[in-house]
């Protein structure tokens, strides 16, 4: 399943992304994010992350850097630590207390 989704995404990126050029307000673009998410988190979690990203990406959002969370940082809802592209995983203020308080969840 994961392989199938990855193949479809790669084809999409080859064909459709070429047609429109960069339109995404985020880095990485939604399709690149989806590809990375499915590759790191497998089909189910990866698709869920990709769906949430697609819903986030609309003309009224601020955009910016929004990386695929690591497997340790995965959250089923809310923004995971270390996805804002800062060198230090200092996304603490956006994090629920419980998670940023656990040292193991931070730098991973």
């Amino acid at each position, binding site marked *: 399943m994961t392989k199938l989704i990855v193949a479809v995404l790669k084809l999409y990126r*080859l*064909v459709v992304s*070429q*047609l*429109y*050029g*960069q*339109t*995404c*307000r*985020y*880095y990485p673009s*939604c399709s690149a994010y989806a590809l990375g998410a499915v590759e790191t988190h497998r089909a189910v979690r990866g698709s869920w992350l990709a769906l949430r990203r697609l819903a986030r*990406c*609309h*003309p009224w*959002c*601020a*955009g*910016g*850097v929004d990386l695929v969370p690591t497997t340790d940082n995965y959250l089923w809802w809310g923004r995971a630590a270390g996805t804002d*592209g800062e060198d230090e995983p200092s996304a603490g203020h956006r994090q629920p207390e419980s998670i940023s308080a656990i040292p193991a969840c931070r730098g991973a």
Partner: protein
Amino acid sequence: MDTVLAPLLWLVSYIMMGWHWVFAELLGINHDGVNWALSIIGLVIVIRTLLIPLFVRQIRSQRKMQLLQPQLRELQKKYKGDRERLQQEMMKLYKKTGTNPFASCLPILLQAPFLFSLFRVLDGIARDRPRGAFPNHEDLFESAGRAEVFGAKLADSFLTTDVMQTRVLAMIMVVGMVVSQYVTQRQIMRKNMPKEALEGPFAQQQKILLYVLPLVFLFSGVYFPLGTVLYWLTSNFWTMGQQLYVIRRMPAPGSDAEKAQQRRQAEKARRKGLTVADPEEKPEVEPGQENGEARRQQPKRTSRSQRKKKRR
């Protein structure tokens, strides 16, 4: 599927009937084919007009971005060769200053259900199964079923017809789509991108595009009814016009289009008898030095050996 799409099927068929009324009753055109073809073009106009506010927003933030040029140039210097990092930093800057120049894919995604609804409605006309608002308007349904342009039925597709005219027309429209898409792409590249951006891996991508694009359009031109292809073609032309307008009014810094704009402005100023504004004054960019942020981010040209050195 049609139950989910029911409201859209209604909307699409009503917009088409509205335009049909304009052409048939108001203007008195007595030709089913012309009327329905024009109402499909009208449908494109309605949908794309509704999307204009999004487009205007995009232009505004592109204008604001002109002010960010010094900061962007600094980033480019700092992260030279590290394209990924440069893109990240640029995105952060856009976010911080609220000047994201991209529209996201929503405007494109929004159009997909409309295109699909049109496909269902036309498919219904071809199969004598009225969909959307057509079950209540039998006379219009019959008229749409008769609609022919140059002897080709609008509801027929290349695959479902034996009529030569339909096939020829479908192929002409495929060529039209390829050409319009290609011209749009070329306009962005040639006129609105600095020279550096046109070299390196980007040129490679463009080559892939040249082969893949006709295949995608060929598939749609063969599979979809003529009316749907007409919608797509019109939409492509609209995009092309919009693009030309943006390139003329808001060229990317350092591109040929910017030089042309400055020339026009100088010309205008001269004609009015005013002092010619110093072109260096506005965007203090050396021509050809700047990257086309407003368009795509393109990597600076690095040779294979240079990249290898960096990695070590």
